[in-house]
């Protein structure tokens, strides 16, 4: 009997400890996020029927696919495709350069002239949920004088809107 009581008390202590770890970890996360320069709002914005607009780190600006299309039509910006080379080969925004995050250091020096010549850069990846565009945009913002935008709805948003696409190998 006392053994069963002991086990029950130990299980209660273990559960209480687990709860403390979760609450403590969550509180630590909120605290660090509050003071971190990479912190994001605790609650994401959502506007109307559009896909969610998750927050971007400081220094980056969001752009809708319609705004991006206007910039593409007017040749006012360089498009940067942050997806894998194979996805780029299968389809991309015409004129976009391919710059996945894990190739940034290797490829950026070769692309720097084209990027610098453009007044601003619009970075995209597959859709709202991919983080690669944000990652590339953050690195770009560190080395590039112009404005850096993230087209949050990504390739999926662009193709869903019926805007022009191209396919084929990337240029070196």
């Amino acid at each position, binding site marked *: *009997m*006392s*053994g069963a*009581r*002991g*086990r029950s*008390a*130990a299980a209660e*202590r*273990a*559960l*209480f*400890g*687990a709860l*403390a*770890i*979760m609450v*403590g*970890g*969550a509180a*630590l*996360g*909120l605290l*660090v*996020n509050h003071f*971190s320069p*990479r*912190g*994001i*709002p*605790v*609650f*994401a*914005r*959502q506007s109307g029927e559009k896909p*969610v607009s*998750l*927050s*971007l*780190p400081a220094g980056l600006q969001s752009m809708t696919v319609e705004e991006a299309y206007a910039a593409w039509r007017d040749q006012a910006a360089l498009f940067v495709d942050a997806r*894998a080379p194979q996805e780029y080969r299968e389809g991309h925004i015409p004129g976009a350069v391919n710059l996945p*995050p*894990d190739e940034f250091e290797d490829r950026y020096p070769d692309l720097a002239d084209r990027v610098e010549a453009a007044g601003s850069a619009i970075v995209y990846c597959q*859709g*709202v*949920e*991919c*983080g*690669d565009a*944000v*990652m590339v945009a953050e690195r770009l913002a560190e080395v590039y004088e112009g404005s850096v935008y993230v087209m949050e709805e990504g390739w999926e948003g662009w193709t869903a809107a019926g805007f022009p696409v191209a396919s084929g190998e990337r240029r070196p």
Partner: protein
Amino acid sequence: MDGGRLPCGLRGAAAVRRAAAILAHPVTGAVCRLLLGGIFVYTAVPKLTHPAEFARLVYGYRILDPSLVNLAAITLPWIEVTAGSFLALGVLPRSSAAVVAGLLALFMAAGALALARGLKIECGCFFPLLTGDRLTWRLLARDGALFAIALQPIVWPTSFLGGRRGPRTGRDPGGNDE
């Protein structure tokens, strides 16, 4: 009687006892804790240093209301890193292992739901910058294996140096676990 031979049933029972002794051994406990705790800390760090990117991965699972996605992306990696480091260090071993097992169960459920709905998304288990893993049933099976490992410190919790933290008996009513 045939000297060294035991009847089949007894041989099976002896094998089960040997397996249980190996599973309950403090060294097995230390290996399980360090492995699992290390994996949790290693995989949490990129997520907690890139909250905006991780929020997108969480959003991709299409489970949470979008307004809650950021909250989950901010808190989850810190819960992972707290539980993982506690587990590796043997601090509250049973509790931290329970949190790790709970998180793994949550990840498996969320992943299975996403796959069943035909979503083609990044796993986010390890960070895409490191592996670029697409969510697959195989990755969920890996989570299942980690879940099985997490049961060891729950049943036989050990402290940092492998000292036994339980199980409690009637003669040790207070126990010394957590």
